[in-house]
Each structure stands twice: as C-alpha cells, then as structure tokens.
C-alpha cells in the first residue's frame, strides 16, 4: 500500500531527512480497518503501516478512535470490516509477541507490584527471571513490594509498561502512556520510551498531545473522527513550514513563486508572500526571485510546531488541552 499523505504534499527535491533505509518490513498493517458501534463509525477505513524498528506516533484528539484501533490490533475488539495484520499474522492471533498497555494500567490493586507481574508472567508463560528485569527497566525495584493500589499515578503507569515488557516483545503498543501524569512523571515515561526505542523495539505510541511525542517518533499518523488525516515522518509534517518572503514588487514575486511552486503553495498575507516549502527549497526560491529582478528584503523560514500542524489538520474538532499545562496530580510518594 502507498503511504503518501493525503492532505500534505510531500516536498519535492532532496528529502530533508534520511528515513530508515532500506524501508523495513511492516510490523503492523491495517487495511480499511473499520469499527462501528451502532450507527457511529468510530474507526473509519483506516489504512496504515508501522515499520520494524520505528517509533510510530498514533495521534489524534480525544475520541478520535485511537484506543479502539489499538484494541483491534490486539484482538480485544473485533473490526466491523477491514483487516489488520500484526507481525505478519491476523490481529489478535499474534498477541503473544506483542506487549501492550491500553487505556491505562489494568492491574490488581490488592497485589504488590511484584505479585502483579508474577501473575502476568504466569499468564504470559515467561520465567520469573523477567520480573526483576522489567522492574529494573521501569525503575520500580524499590517499591515492588508495595501494593499497586498505593502507587502514585506515575508508578502505576510505569508498572503497566513493565507488564507490557514481560515477554520481551518485538512490538510494544502503548496507549497514551503519559496521560494524567505530572511533568516529572511525563519525563520519566519519556525517558523510558527512549530506552525502549534504543533497544530496537518497534513502538506504537498513541497520544492526543503532540508535544509529548514529537521528539520521540520517527513517523506519525494523525487521526480525527476515526479517519486518517496524514501518515508521514515527523520531518515531512513539520516541513510544511512557511517561508515568509518580503519582496518588491509583490505581484511579480507572487507570479515567480507560483511558477516555481504551483498556486496551491503560494499565498499573500499582510503584504508578504507565504510559501509552503521545505527548508531545502529556500535557496531555489531566493534565486528565482532575484533572477526575476525582485528585491528580496526579508526571507525567513517559520518552522511550525507540530502542534500547529496538528491543529490545522484536525481543524478545530480537536479537544486539545494546552500542551503546556498537563493535568496536575499530587504525587504521593513517587520515587
């Protein structure tokens, strides 16, 4: 299947980044995956691909259908139509090789952290030796004897991730792993995710907060109302940045730009030329303008944050809390 973004033009010219080459085999493939609850289509003909070894961000506002999609990948929810393949097998049959944390850490409050992992290790059929290893990975060894019910939110989340790692899975699926955490908790989880990615695992990470994941992900898919808006690398998404050009005469400059880039990528805003370009195209634009005898007095690349891209793509139906103010919680004895 092709993964060309629908609403975002891939910049022409040399690719601004070097994606993993050669393109790794797909670990997750969904083909027009659809879930309807009654008359509501919650996931709508979703086709995407996650490649081996990448950190894949699955982004979208609350209610976009991210969790439902991940549940289908794990075989917890049956698709209404379409299909999903995980690790080369129909979704749900390969759960044994996938580590997952979906919609919060579901663990037993009356059991200690270690006993929770003991139960799950027996379910997974892995030796008890893995328990100490994953406790160490999530930095919970010291508190492993305490009841899960007494953990802070951040510790609960980390134990949930530990549970997902018990099988030493090639694919780790984490649904909003930073949801509800305070800044310190978020940075703990983020560090953990970096480590997982560094270990060469494929990580699928969902979030409604772009800032959470943009520095972690190789590629992202953005969904809203169950539909795929774009699937691309983070750089390509950000590469939709604006080149703002101050030039005289403006109409000549606009004509040159249109000839170079096409009308869709050129607009005039507040007496300046706004061009949709990738950073690599700046020099070519400048040269063309100067050759056409246009005075260029200002030329600046406005790299948009992914937040902006996201907001534009999801077009206001996003229910986005500001990235800067994540939900605050009191941290009871975290660490």
């Amino acid at each position, binding site marked *: 299947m092709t993964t060309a973004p629908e609403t975002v033009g891939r910049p022409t010219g040399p690719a601004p980044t070097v994606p993993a080459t050669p393109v790794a085999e797909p670990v997750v493939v969904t083909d027009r995956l659809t879930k309807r609850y009654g008359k509501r289509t919650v996931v709508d003909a979703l086709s995407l691909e996650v490649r081996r070894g990448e950190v894949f961000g699955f982004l979208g506002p609350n209610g976009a259908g991210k969790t439902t999609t991940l549940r289908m990948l*794990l075989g917890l*929810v049956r698709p209404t139509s379409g299909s999903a393949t995980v690790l*080369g097998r129909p979704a749900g049959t390969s759960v*044994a090789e996938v580590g997952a944390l979906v*919609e919060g850490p579901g663990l037993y409050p009356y059991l200690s952290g270690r006993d929770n992992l003991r*139960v799950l290790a*027996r*379910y*997974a059929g892995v030796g008890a030796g893995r328990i100490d290893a994953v406790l160490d990975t999530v930095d919970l060894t010291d508190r492993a004897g305490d009841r899960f019910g007494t953990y802070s939110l951040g510790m609960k989340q980390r134990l949930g991730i530990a*549970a997902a790692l018990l099988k030493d899975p090639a694919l780790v699926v984490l649904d909003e792993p930073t949801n509800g955490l305070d800044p310190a908790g978020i940075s703990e989880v983020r560090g953990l995710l970096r480590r997982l990615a560094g270990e060469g695992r494929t990580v699928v990470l969902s979030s409604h907060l772009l800032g959470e994941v943009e520095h972690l992900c190789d590629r992202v898919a953005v969904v809203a109302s169950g539909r795929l808006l774009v699937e691309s690398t983070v750089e390509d998404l950000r590469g939709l940045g604006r080149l703002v050009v101050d030039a005289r005469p403006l109409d000549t400059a606009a004509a040159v730009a249109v000839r170079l880039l096409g009308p869709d990528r050129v607009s005039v805003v507040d007496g300046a030329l706004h061009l949709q370009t990738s950073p690599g195209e700046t020099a070519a634009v400048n040269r063309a303008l100067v050759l056409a005898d246009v005075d260029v007095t200002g030329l600046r690349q406005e790299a948009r944050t992914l937040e902006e891209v996201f907001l534009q793509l999801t077009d206001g139906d996003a229910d986005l809390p500001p990235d800067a103010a994540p939900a605050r919680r009191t941290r009871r004895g975290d660490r």
Partner: protein
Amino acid sequence: MSAATAVAGLPVRTSGSLPSIVRAELLKLGRRPATWVLLGLWPALQLVFSLLIPYISYRRGSSFEGIPPEQVLATTLPDRLVGNALSGLPLFGGALLLTLGALLAGSEYGWGTLKTLLAQGPRRTTVLAGQVLALLTVLAGTVAFSLALTAGASALIAGAEGAPADWPGLGELARGFGGGLLVAATWGVLGMLLGTALRGTALAIGLGLVWVLAVESLVVNVAAPLLEVFDTLQRALPGVNAGSLVAALAGGTVRTPGVVAVVDGAQAAWVLGAFLAGAIALTGLLLVRRDLS
C-alpha cells in the same frame, strides 16, 4: 507453523499453559482478602449453627426448637458429620459463594485487568478454564476444611459428653465431599456468569443475593403451594436442587433452612451439574463473543 514464521527473524513466543494460568489465578485468590472472608465465613457460620448453638443449648438443659436436650446432643455427634458440615451450602453458603464468583469475574472488568490478562496472549477460553479450575481448587479446599472443622468439633463434643463417635464411612464421606463441591461450584460459577454478563460486581452481587435469598424462597414457599406451574418450576431452581442434594447426603433430618428434599439426590445432582456446565458454557460464550472495550 507457516503463520508463526511469516515475519522472518521474529522470535515466536507462546503464552502461559493452562497449569501456569491456574497457578496465576491461585496466587490472585490467595492474596485477595475477600477470598478469605467469603470462604472462611461459610465454615465458621456452619460451625456456629450446626454445632455450637445446639451444644450450648444442650449444656443449659433447654430444648432446642422443641426437641429434647438429648436429641439435640445427638444432632452434633460425628455420625451426622456430612449434614453438619454442608447444611449451610444451599442458602447462606450459596449466597457467600455466589458473591465470591461475581466478585472474581466482575472485578476483572472494573479494574481493567481482563484486557491485561488477554494482552499476555492466552486464548479467552483458556483464561476462563484457568479461572474456573482455580475456583474449583479453593472450593474443594473449603469443603474439605468444613468437613475437617466439623469433624474436629464433633469429636470434642463426643469426647466431652462421653457420647458415641460413630464416624461415617469413607464412601459416605466421599459422596459428601463430592456433593458439597458440586453445590459450591455451581454457586461460584453462577456468580462468575453474573459478574461476566454484567461486567461488574455491584449489580451482579445484588441480583445474585436477591435470587438466592428472596426469589427462590418466594417461589418455593409462596408460589409453589398455590400454583402447580410453580411447583414444577421450583424443581429446576439451583437452590432447591442444592437443598435436595444436601438433604440426600445428610441422610437424617436437617433443620437448616433451604435443606429440603424436594427432589431426590440423584436428580438434584444432575440438575446442578447441568447448571454448572451451562454457566461455564454461557460465560465462555460471553467472553469469546464480546468486544473488550
């Protein structure tokens, strides 16, 4: 195994075996305070009502429910072991075990732990099999404990009063144990069915208790004597069959509420077996067919 090797280089891992899952479930049961409370209450109440209260009333020389003291003492002696150890099962034991089953199955939804278990890779039917087998294991332990506790107390009473200690034969004991386990398992699994069907604990426990303590007794005591259709219907109720089976196992008269021989023992065992199998099958069907969201 072509599917397993579809992606070259990815190690194929399998999920836990059934025995391993049973051990996981036993760990959960053993560490859960509610298990000990609910399973401990039944033998404790059993001891108080079948032995302690009758014995105290005998010691005070008063008659118990209109029965002269010597006959009251006779009801506490070792030859009545099976009845005295199991008589609570049809009613309050049933209520406790139904609550336990509903709690076990329902809380997996409330805590979101069922999806965590399934995410480790086992088939849904394997999860259910593991949970049922673990429940049967602790129920067998509890039935055995009730028999042992009652035996110990009866032996003490017989010793103290110089009364004969005529123990039931091994066959009678085995039948008592098997029958008790059948009744206990039926209640426990019916509770699991309720907890699974309602995906939670509160409503499942509430409905289960109303059924055991109120609805069945209304059908048996109010409706059945008045209308023939209810007289037929009551023979199909789990509580009535549990009471009939325990009455058959106990042999002599047992005055515990709920222990009434409405049908004969063999028929009661079959009906309970059908309830047990049906409840497991229906729970499995719900587990396999429904989305986990």
